[in-house]
């Protein structure tokens, strides 16, 4: 798919993923953690379709259980024992809850990274970071060109050698290492020989002139600028909220959520101290939700626009 969030300016993409990853790691407030998980999964589902569900059930869910279990079994902080383990330590309510919170936040971060991989191509990355240092940008572009080429040549050499009866796959380990080494040395000769021509081709097209620029295919649209402003504002609000403790959550030694508020609810059974949300806390959660679902909102907007155009036709 080539519209919506994916086709936004690379700065938008990278700024967005940097923000959500950082805040998923920093904010441990249960509501925010839940938002992180749902939004990151929803975005990944949108990008990968049914494959995302597979990843979730076969990779992320087991991980969630594992991290929670490990934390519960090996960390023994907290004041609310639920049971006594065979080694004499107690299994506490706090360590299980924190293990779960930790696992969910790790999973969200992983999901965001997966999304990042889908959306931010090498080209987009280069646009954002390569402009300042064109030499490095070119080296990266050239590596991306040459690595697949060398891989292909390795295959060609190996097959050509097999075709005249030299094999690198069979024989004992030492023989195989030796043969692979031989192919690598051939590859090196080949690469160096051919690099001379590449250098000529670069020179023939004026490489080495002063004032080389890096071309980029991306342009800022008004929407891009608007989105960047939005993300920056949300980042500021969330930073303030974190600094002032509006999204505070503590899991050790006992669980304490939103301590900034005046009144408190205490659930004695679990040593759980809950405070109602402050007004600013609510605002922070609201903007965090908006930020996390931003890619989906943009995609949806785009889709609606199409629907509208279609119905006009």
């Amino acid at each position: 798919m080539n519209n919506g969030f994916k086709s936004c300016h690379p700065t938008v993409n990278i700024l967005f993923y940097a923000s959500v990853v950082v805040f998923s790691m920093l904010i441990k407030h249960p509501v925010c953690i839940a938002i992180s998980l749902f939004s990151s999964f929803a975005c990944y589902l949108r990008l990968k379709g049914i494959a995302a569900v597979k990843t979730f059930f076969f990779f992320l869910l087991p991980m969630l259980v594992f991290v929670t279990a490990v934390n519960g079994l090996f960390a023994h902080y907290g004041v609310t024992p639920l049971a006594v383990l065979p080694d004499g330590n107690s299994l506490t309510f706090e360590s299980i809850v924190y293990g779960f919170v930790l696992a969910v936040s790790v999973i969200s971060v992983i999901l965001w990274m997966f999304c990042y991989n889908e959306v931010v191509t090498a080209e987009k990355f280069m646009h954002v970071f390569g402009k300042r240092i064109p030499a490095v940008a070119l080296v990266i572009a050239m590596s991306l060109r040459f690595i697949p080429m060398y891989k292909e040549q390795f295959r060609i050499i190996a097959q050509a050698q097999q075709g005249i009866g030299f094999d690198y796959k069979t024989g004992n380990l030492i023989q195989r290492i030796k043969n692979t080494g031989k192919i690598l040395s051939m590859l090196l000769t080949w690469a160096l020989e051919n690099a001379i021509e590449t250098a000529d081709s670069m020179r023939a097209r004026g490489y080495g002139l002063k004032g080389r620029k890096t071309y980029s295919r991306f342009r800022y649209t008004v929407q891009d600028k608007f989105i960047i402003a939005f993300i920056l504002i949300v980042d500021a609000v969330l930073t303030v909220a974190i600094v002032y403790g509006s999204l505070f959550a503590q899991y050790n030694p006992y669980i304490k959520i939103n301590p900034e508020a005046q009144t408190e609810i205490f659930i004695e059974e679990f040593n759980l101290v809950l405070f109602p949300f402050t007004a600013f806390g609510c605002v922070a959660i609201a903007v965090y939700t908006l930020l996390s679902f931003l890619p989906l909102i943009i995609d949806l907007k785009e889709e609606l626009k199409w629907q509208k155009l279609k119905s006009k036709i």
Partner: protein
Amino acid sequence: MAEIKIENLIFSYPLSEKKVLDNVTLSIASGEFVLLCGRSGCGKTTLLRQIKSEISPKGTKKGKVYVDGEDADKMTLRNSSQKIGFVMQNPDNQIVTDKVWHELAFGLENLGLDNEKIRLRVAEMASYFGISLWFEKNVNELSGGQKQLMNLASVMAMHPEVLILDEPTSQLDPISAENFLSTVDKINKELGVTVIITEHRLEEIFPCVDRVIAMEEGKIIADGTPAQIGNRFESLPEFLRLSAPTAMRIFNEVKSDGACPVTVREGRAWLKNQKIFTATDRIKDVVPENEVVLEAKEISFRYSKNSHDVLNNLSFRACKGELLAILGANGSGKSTLVKLLSAIARPYSGKIMINSKNLEKYKFTELYKNVSVLPQNVQALFTSKTVKSELAEVSTKDSDVKEIMKLLGLERLSESHPYDLSGGEQQRLALAKVLLKGTQIIIMDEPTKGMDAEFKSVLADIISKLKSEGRTIIIISHDIEFCAKYADRCAMLFDKTITSVTDRRSFFNENRFYTTAANRMSRGIIEGAITDEDVAICLKEN
């Protein structure tokens, strides 16, 4: 646009007395389309590179080169890189970046143009060269023909006034090559860019150019329009006579007079007025039906479970002592077939029998005592530092090595590094290495790719010697002319299977487009002639 003047140019490489360019004086008018031809090592490339100083080789040089009145040696890099475009032989080695769009922009980035200007030029090039469809692709996903077209476009993006092409189509299949050349022709005719090109395959390029210049040993030995060259055939060196267009060769073979035809169309017009003495039914060759040494029985293959079949129920036989040519277009599965026949990949159904024994049942070493493969990319065979040690790796018998070196004319080169050899010499070395294995079946994957006419006749001689020893040669090729001339039987690989295996005459006579120039030229006038010799025989009084 620009004119080029070369005055008394003498050039020799460092530590060498030999004059690679020997007093070359040449003047090329603005907008002219010039073909420079000569056998490999005659100084063509050296001459071309003298025009573009930033890539000219180091050595001793006398004389001057002027581009638009400006001394080429004193041109600034900015000026030279902008004014003179240069496209080289190997499509892969010229590519610098990973994306097609980036490659198009590379030269413009170097010139320091701003983003909007680059965008405009890149867009313009992409549409002029028909690249728009694969504009966003990675370069390693492209075919050879597409790569070379992209290289041309990325050079043209800099708006050069002179375009120099050094054997640009030698690594391409015939269809991509034709497409590439017609694009070059279009650039010359529509934009008035001065074009200088070197080529081996003269059939397609001859009709396009204004002027043909032939070189030998650093000297210019012929210079004129294609038709003029055709009328002075006798005075030309053999390499040029061998590689000239078919119409021209037949015309001169029968020593006709009048204007020499260059294209197939002109050839037909000329042929209609000729007297035909012999009917072709007198020229018939017998294909011996020997014992079958290799047989593919309904083999099917695909690369992965979910992909489509590359080959489907393909069957054929190869007999003892014959040259079987398997022809087919790009992507028809020819290379895959080579892999299957040499046990690099396995068919998922069907059998391959070698000497009536299933290929699967052979042990590794045993199999490669029966079959060996000359790969398309011959550099992939070279492991050693010298030609001699390269061959010693295959056979420890000194006498065998010597004999094979003699057969392939490598004695002079025995101490050279394989990579220092020319393309044709590398091909010969690779062939020597494969032949030294002494296998009964030899498979050659595109053995004539990028080779000149002289090499082809050398190869044909070697093949006929191998045949007389009772060995079987299977060549996989695009080269219609070569197969028509030398193959015993031909097979067409199309739609994942081999449709028919017939002797070369019936094979090419049945085709209308996919056939030799001689056949296209003589169709309806002389029936059944497929090579220029056939046509010439029919035209001669005996």
